[in-house]
């Protein structure tokens, strides 16, 4: 039986799914393009799910950027995987490394660190669970953002998401530091309330 046909990595127990990924990677190292294609798709899907769940403020394009970086890194480093060892810790180390690089770029270190520490867990949970989790997070934030006034949304985005200083944000929005402060405070309060309500409604 060829390693690629050991079964879809999405089905069965977590050990079996992991073993299926080991088999795909082993086959990929031996030059099996079909197995490699399946493996890349699987890694892309898991990374996409993980990032959307942990960093819901990122746009689709940003998420795809990170996913693609992980795939390119996997591709570049594929000779460093020892077929005698499991695939999961290997790809998790690469993904953690790339997430850290992106965290620097997005200045949202904390959330990405969280994502990195959750990697092992997310890679071993069933796709349905973490996907649902990501969707709930994303929907809560989206609906909450819709309730903000344009000024509040902009202030929140500049100060909390892009981490500009109050003065920089005030300069960019052509307003005063005091006004930015108030807008960020109001936006945070509204978002918190909306997310809590959203979470409760869905329970």
């Amino acid at each position, binding site marked *: 039986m060829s390693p690629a046909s050991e079964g879809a990595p999405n089905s069965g127990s977590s050990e079996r799914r992991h073993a299926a990924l080991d088999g795909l990677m082993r086959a*990929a*190292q*031996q*030059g099996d*393009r*079909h197995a*490699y*294609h399946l493996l*890349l*798709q699987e890694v*892309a899907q898991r990374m996409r799910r993980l990032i959307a769940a942990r960093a819901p403020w990122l746009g689709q394009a940003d998420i*795809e950027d990170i*996913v*693609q*970086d992980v*795939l*390119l*890194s996997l*591709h*570049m*480093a*594929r*000779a*460093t*995987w*020892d*077929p005698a*060892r499991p695939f999961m*810790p*290997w*790809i998790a*180390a*690469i993904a953690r*490394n*790339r997430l850290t*690089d992106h965290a620097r770029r997005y200045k949202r270190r904390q959330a990405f660190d969280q994502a990195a520490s959750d990697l092992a867990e997310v890679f071993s949970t069933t796709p349905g669970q973490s996907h649902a989790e990501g969707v709930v997070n994303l929907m809560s934030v989206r609906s909450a953002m819709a309730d903000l006034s344009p000024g509040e949304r902009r202030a929140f985005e500049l100060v909390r998401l892009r981490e500009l200083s109050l003065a920089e944000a005030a300069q960019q929005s052509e307003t005063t530091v005091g006004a930015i402060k108030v807008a960020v405070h109001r936006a945070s309060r509204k978002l918190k309330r909306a997310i809590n309500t959203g979470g409760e409604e869905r329970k």
Partner: protein
Amino acid sequence: MKTDALIDSLARDAGPVRPLRSPLRRIWGWLAIALGFAGAMVWAIGPRPDLTERMLEARFLLEQGAALATAITAAMAALALTMPDAARIWRWLPVVPAVAWLGTLGLGCLRDWAQMGPEGLRLTPDPECLVYIALIGSLPLLALVLMLRRGAPLRPSWTLALAALAAAAIGNFALRLFHMQDAALMVLVWQVGAVALIAAIAALCGRAVLRWPGVPA
């Protein structure tokens, strides 16, 4: 580019790859190149006239042994840092020989002081050490960087610093076979100092030399 298109193109271009062997097995090839080049340089420059005497001296052997062990373990640690799932113990490997190296030279300073007084700790300029160490370390460093680039640049600054430490320690090992300087403080400052300086400069260049695809330095 869409992710699906990227996956298609990566899968299309992927031929078979031979998995890299462990640092313990890859180190020997590098060591052969490094020691071969260092030996050739010593031969070209001409070994020191008292080399036979020195080879019988425990202190000299200990210092040289520690320098060589530092080179070998630093090179293995650098190789291990490019393997995503390598055990963490690899990266600490050079600590023991490096401490032993500094320790033997530190004790040497005390002995020189005890035997010769302040004269034993006289520090005079000896900048050519840096030049020789850099020269002899150049090819070993190049060879090691080529090996490292086959791996994953997970910690580029540390990796390149360890690689440069390995290469410069080989340079220092060879230097002492032709350079008549055995005063412990002089060796510590001008030779080990040069090795440390080279490793520090390499650390700054890490991200430019070892990087992931598609990411600017």
